[in-house]
């Protein structure tokens, strides 16, 4: 009788628990708290946090290669690069490229913010990360979750959990991270600049944009194909207006379904063994650095453009060049209206914001081409 009881205890997970597991539980609980109570990106943080919890319960073998349930999600969804492009399909069906088409100059702002990403790459190498790892950390500055996961899973899969969580966490913190940088780099006078009405964009232009962009980017950087093709297909669904069902399916049902698998698998990569290393702390630090530098780079790019433009743009919209859609644009709008309450920058900021999505994908594709 006693032996059976003993056997039960030894075969239970509890005795195989390590201190690391307990720390990871704590991490998971903190993320659950942030997701549920503070509602920081709950759609992703919630499954991620739960994923962390379940892989840190010993002997469940959920992440056991070829056996575990979650491993299959991870393998087919992320290792084989299926989920990030599907998320992009849904994003494409939601994004309105109108403000970008109306003011194509904002594409440059989307590029400007990516310059910050390469500065971070440099910094990460200085911190002793190898080039693949540094690239995966730098892409956090692009503020684009799926792209971060796409690149990290190819270059440095062991960092996936850390880079993905910091990308999503900082995205939720945009309203806190960006304004100080915006105020530091712009003058009160610049923030007061009011931008005129955007020119109207016809339906034909909206339909042509995804087609032309998809062709152009894939011809120039073929490694961007998985993400950009899906993004533009989703947008074509939306703008064509003839396949409303597909557009809705891509942006609601499909997106929600893959988000579950994405969150769970990303969380499940964070076992105590891979996550609890000093490196991870550096990743969070560098991720924040990446965000700040990219914001700054976007602002500076906008100021440089202003030197040449007759119709001055409000340099704040440069900060929206990081892609966090639409958090960054909202943030720009808010800071702009604080300086001048009749300043409505929201739509103007959506231009660089969606350009940032394209820019981040291009930057990731170039990193992948050079380092993959």
């Amino acid at each position: 009788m006693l032996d059976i009881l003993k056997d039960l205890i030894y075969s239970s997970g509890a005795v195989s628990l390590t201190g690391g597991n307990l720390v990871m539980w704590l991490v998971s609980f903190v993320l659950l708290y942030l997701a549920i109570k503070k509602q920081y990106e709950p759609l992703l943080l919630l499954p991620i946090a739960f994923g962390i919890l379940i892989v840190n319960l010993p002997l469940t073998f959920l992440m056991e290669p070829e056996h575990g349930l979650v491993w299959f999600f991870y393998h087919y969804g992320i290792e084989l690069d299926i989920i990030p492009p599907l998320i992009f399909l849904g994003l494409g069906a939601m994004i309105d490229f109108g403000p970008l088409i109306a003011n194509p100059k904002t594409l440059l702002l989307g590029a400007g913010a990516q310059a910050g990403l390469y500065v971070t790459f440099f910094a990460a190498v200085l911190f002793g990360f190898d080039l693949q790892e540094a690239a995966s950390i730098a892409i956090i500055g692009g503020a684009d979750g799926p792209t971060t996961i796409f690149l990290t899973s190819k270059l440095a899969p062991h960092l996936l959990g850390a880079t993905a969580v910091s990308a999503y966490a900082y995205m939720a913190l945009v309203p806190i991270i960006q304004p100080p940088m915006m105020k530091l780099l712009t003058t009160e006078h610049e923030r007061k600049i009011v931008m005129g009405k955007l020119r109207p964009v016809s339906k034909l232009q909206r339909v042509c944009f995804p087609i032309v962009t998809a062709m152009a980017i894939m011809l120039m950087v073929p490694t961007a194909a998985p993400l950009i093709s899906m993004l533009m297909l989703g947008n074509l669904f939306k703008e064509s207006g003839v396949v409303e069902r597909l557009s809705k399916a891509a942006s609601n049902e499909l997106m929600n379904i893959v988000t579950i698998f994405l969150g769970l698998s990303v969380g499940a990569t964070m076992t105590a063994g891979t996550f609890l290393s000093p490196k991870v702390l550096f990743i969070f630090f560098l991720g924040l650095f990446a965000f700040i530098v990219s914001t700054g780079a976007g602002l500076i790019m906008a100021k440089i453009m202003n030197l040449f433009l007759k119709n001055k743009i409000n340099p704040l919209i440069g900060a929206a060049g990081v892609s966090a859609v639409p958090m960054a644009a909202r943030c720009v709008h808010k800071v702009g209206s604080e300086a001048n309450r009749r300043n409505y920058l929201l739509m103007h900021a959506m231009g660089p914001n969606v350009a940032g999505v394209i820019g981040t994908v291009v930057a990731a594709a170039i990193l992948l081409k050079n380092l993959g």
Partner: protein
Amino acid sequence: METDWSKVMEVFATGIIGVFVVMILLQILTQLSTRIIDFVENFGKGEESSPEPKSPTAPSKD
């Protein structure tokens, strides 16, 4: 582990330049296609415009 600094510089430089080149080309393409579409649409309107304004604009006025 030795860091290959020439590779770092290469990634750094090609990255920044690459992103800008791609985005500038995209900007030019977008502007170009916008112009072409504007031209085509205006051309189309130019022929239809004489009968058009009467009926569709009337209800929107008050």
